[in-house]
């Protein structure tokens, strides 16, 4: 006599036995696939970051024009014999011939000195300002021609990097120049505007307004659309007792970007709340 219930049980176990190897094979393949996808993503991320830095370098070479045409004068602490890297924006890109007033924006010499000493700057396009170019020029009116950036750092990317950097700073939060130097080294290798902005902020926090000004300027040159950079830039100017320039810079930037933050800061500066 057949025991159907037992047969059904045996059949069930037989089926499990039959499909078990396939199940394990599927899991194995799934793991391999996941691993491959993971590796691929990793590679992509590395490629993206490298292309990003390349793009940034390109940006640097093609259009260093900040959104507003005001090119503030450098902070002059320059010993005259010092060799200064070229930082001046090519004339044909920035200043139209019929402009009346010109402001050449360039970093302070002491800052440039540190760059020269610490590394061999790979960015060929940061040109050395000559002594003639360094001569102070007054604020100029609106530049009609604005070169558009094609490659921009995605906002998410910036935020992530900033967060990463913030985390690192939090670990060694001593505001020593050595700590900032590490970030500066990193910035020199990849020219990431997020890093330069970070450095500018840090310098601003420790009341080194000259360096804060310089790095904000570099950030603006790399990416003219970073609002925080312009804010730090203007604040640094105020702290360096260049209120008028700060106002003009902010006005130009507001005209360009309609930034609320910039408007609030401008109002504060004009009213004297921010000094």
């Amino acid at each position, binding site marked *: 006599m*057949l025991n159907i219930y037992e*047969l059904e049980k045996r059949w069930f176990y037989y089926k499990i036995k039959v499909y078990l190897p396939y199940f394990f094979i599927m899991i194995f393949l799934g793991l391999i696939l996941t691993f491959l996808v993971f590796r691929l993503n990793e590679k992509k991320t590395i490629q993206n970051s490298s292309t990003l830095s390349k793009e940034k370098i390109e940006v640097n070479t093609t259009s260093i024009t900040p959104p507003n045409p005001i090119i503030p004068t450098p902070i002059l602490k320059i010993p005259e014999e010092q060799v200064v890297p070229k930082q001046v924006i090519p004339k044909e890109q920035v200043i139209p011939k019929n402009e009346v007033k010109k402001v050449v924006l360039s970093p302070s010499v002491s800052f440039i000195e540190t760059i020269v000493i610490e590394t061999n700057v790979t960015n060929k396009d940061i040109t050395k300002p000559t002594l003639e170019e360094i001569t102070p020029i007054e604020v100029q009116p609106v530049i009609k021609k604005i070169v558009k950036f094609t490659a921009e750092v995605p906002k998410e990317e910036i935020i992530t990097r900033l967060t990463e950097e913030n985390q690192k700073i939090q670990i060694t939060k001593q505001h020593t120049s050595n700590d900032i130097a590490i970030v500066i080294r990193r910035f020199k290798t990849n020219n990431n505007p997020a890093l330069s902005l970070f450095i500018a902020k840090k310098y601003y926090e420790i009341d080194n307004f000259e360096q804060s000004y310089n790095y904000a300027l570099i950030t603006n040159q790399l990416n003219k659309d970073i609002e925080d950079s312009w804010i730090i830039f203007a604040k640094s100017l105020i702290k360096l007792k260049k209120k008028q320039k700060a106002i003009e810079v902010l006005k130009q930037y507001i005209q360009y970007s309609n930034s609320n933050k910039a408007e609030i800061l401008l109002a504060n500066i004009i009213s004297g709340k921010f000094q």
Partner: protein
Amino acid sequence: MKDNIFNIAKNIFLDTVNPQDYVELESISTFYRTLHACVLKPLKMVLLYGKPGTGKSMLLAKLHDELSQTQKVYLYKTPIIDESEFYKTLAQDLLSVNYEGELNFTQFIKILNNLLSKEVPIILLDEAQLYSNSLMEKIRLLSDTRKLKFVITLHKTDKEDLIAKEHFQTRIWESIELNNTSSEELKFYIHKKLLQASCLDVANMFNNNAVNLIYKLTKGNYRDSHKLLYTLLQIYSWYYEHSPSKIRHNKISTKIVEMAAMHVGLLDA
């Protein structure tokens, strides 16, 4: 409640050798025609061999059934192991001589020479691999007298060595090897068997997939197929009576085929 059609159908596949159940398949018909032609020739011995369950016994039974109407033919389905008993049984059947006591080969030859008529009777020996070598040698000598013709069936086993011996080989005029059936023939076989018993509904359930699975499990062996089909229909019969919602009447379930195969030992589970 309707008649349990599966219960009727399962009995068709009982493993019995009945010439009435013979299903004429193309390959088997060819073998049968060859065998039939062989026994009509003045040969001494015909060998029918193949693996167990390839239909040798059925073919022999069918031959006996057909030839018995026209000539003297004797079928021994069960081997007679004892030599004296073998001669005495032959003497009894062929010559109606009832011998008491021992009967040896020489005495049997004498009886054969004195009493046998001109008509050469055909002796059909099934399962000849069970005969001893000595008796097989005697059978060879008996066939040499031309007073008897032998058709023997043999499993394809060690006995083949004996058959292969030259002195034995020369006396075999014809040897026929039977093989397992093909998938297509198995389908035809199942359908024809069921239709012979008027189980049309059950026959329609055996589609190509079901037959292919059965073929895969049995490798086309008739005996294994019979066992599997019997158990399969037995399981169907049980479901029909106890849990009819679990079976479908339009096709054979793979699950039930596999369950049947597990029960008969064709599937290792």
